[in-house]
């Protein structure tokens, strides 16, 4: 049984089919990349999976249990945590307090929640900034904070929406290392990412979306050579580079 599974997931906005009969399956311990050109429906798919949008059709199951129609906070409590592409820190709270909010989803007492939050803050490398106010963080730090808050909810699945966007190559390298560590510790992840190097380096499998539909799925190297994917998105330059890896 899949950990998280979507069948025939569809969402339209007016005449636009943002997500069109999408099937996705994530097994325990998977790290699945979700790629596609701008407007392909990746973030809409995340909003459907995390309950921020209601699908027009289709089914979403977490460990076999339907989570369609549940509110985002319930879905989080059941074990699906998401980050936002445009980071949304609680600006006037400290890094530690931000992460504490996530930890409170599993620990009702603030004492226990703060302990968990402190550990997660260390894990993502924000230890020295624990008591800094979130509004003063740099972009790479904000991305880490976004990740830390989601991790603190102790999810079964992490949905990461472009955690590398806006980072420079060195920072991306560090984020890849961090995500590898988290994955190695047993976390299942679904990763939306525009940075191809990062997706190819991290993912075991990649799903490619275009105009809301899945156009390819498979190992990163296979997908990169798939003619439909090349046509839709990657371009000649990348096809030449991919087999060399």
């Amino acid at each position, binding site marked *: 049984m899949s950990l998280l599974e979507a069948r025939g997931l569809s969402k339209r906005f007016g005449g636009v089919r943002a997500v069109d009969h999408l099937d996705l399956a994530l097994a325990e311990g998977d790290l699945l990349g979700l790629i596609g050109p701008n407007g392909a429906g990746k973030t809409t798919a995340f909003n459907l999976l995390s309950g921020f949008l209601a699908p027009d059709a289709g089914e979403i199951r977490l460990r076999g249990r339907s989570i369609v129609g549940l509110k985002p906070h319930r879905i989080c409590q059941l074990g699906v945590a998401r980050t936002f592409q445009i980071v949304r820190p*609680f600006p006037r709270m400290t890094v530690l307090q931000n992460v504490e909010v996530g930890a409170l989803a599993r620990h009702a007492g603030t004492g226990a929640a703060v302990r968990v939050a402190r550990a997660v803050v260390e894990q993502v490398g924000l230890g020295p900034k624990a008591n800094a106010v979130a509004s003063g963080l740099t972009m790479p730090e904000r991305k880490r904070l976004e990740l830390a808050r989601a991790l603190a909810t102790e999810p079964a699945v992490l949905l990461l929406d472009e955690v590398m966007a806006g980072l420079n190559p060195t920072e991306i390298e560090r984020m890849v290392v961090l995500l590898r560590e988290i994955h190695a510790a047993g976390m299942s992840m679904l990763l939306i990412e525009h940075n191809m190097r990062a997706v190819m380096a991290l993912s075991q499998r990649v799903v490619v979306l275009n105009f809301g539909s899945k156009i390819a799925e498979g190992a990163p190297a296979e997908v990169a050579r798939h003619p439909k994917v090349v046509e839709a998105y990657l371009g000649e330059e990348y096809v030449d580079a991919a087999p060399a890896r």
Partner: protein
Amino acid sequence: MTWLGIAALGVLLALPAVVSSYVLTILIFIFFYAFLGQAWNVVGGYAGQLSVGHAAFLGVGAYASAVLAQEVGLSPWLGMFVGGALAGALGAVIGYLGFRFGLRGFYFVLLTVAFAEVCRIVVNNVEAVGGAVGFYITFTGDPRQFQFRDNRAWYYVTLVLMLAATGIVALIERRRFGVYLAAIREDESAAEALGVDTLRYKMLAMIVSSFLTGVGGTFYACYLLSLQPNAVFGIPLSVEIIIRPIVGGSGTLLGPILGSFILTPLAEVSRYYLGQGGWHGAHLIAYGVLLVAVVLFLPEGAYPRLVRLVRARKRA
């Protein structure tokens, strides 16, 4: 900090022995408005849901306990909780309508104002509770009827009200409830994504806030002995309730108290001198100017600024 608190409390306890009755009256209103500000602070400050209709809760609490005392003979000591419960129920209705249907920002403000106005108009037209003439309470001076002949007793009653509300807010602040309210204020969708049942916690905040405000209605009724619908349910009173925590620092524990110590004497003095000159209501203009100044120059309120000044001085 603890010692400073204990010293401040000692001064407040000893004050009635040395100050005049007039000063005592001003202090009573400082405490009472600090209490109301603290009650508002739960939903307006911590949860960031701007209610500008809190007079409705005060009015419901005041009328409930006054009518029960006069017509049924229920002691206001019990009536204050009945009034609080009714105000809490009204808060739940307003909160549900606002939060369930996702009214944010100005739309929520309008909803709360509208409800307070509806209350004002309804009570103005219900003859059983005096209608537009108002409702009057017989003065007995009997402590069992929540009435005191000595201003010093009123002083301690309002001091206890203020401290109790502050204690409740301090408890909320340190628990999951308080952290969740702050998260909702800062970014509701992000809070929702982190497992916060935002509807539930906003409702709870509204109920706690309106309950406390309703409890305060009993003091209002028994101290002033007359209830006028246009005053008790009016927008000016709602503004009086919210302006102190905003000036002092909304969403902070001591903001409403500091705000009340700044504004209540100012209101009293300006009301007195401007009123004498025939400028009735001019203090409301002064409030408006002050509110604009606070929004421009002290958006987070006086208390957070004060804390930063003290810290900077310590470091220097």
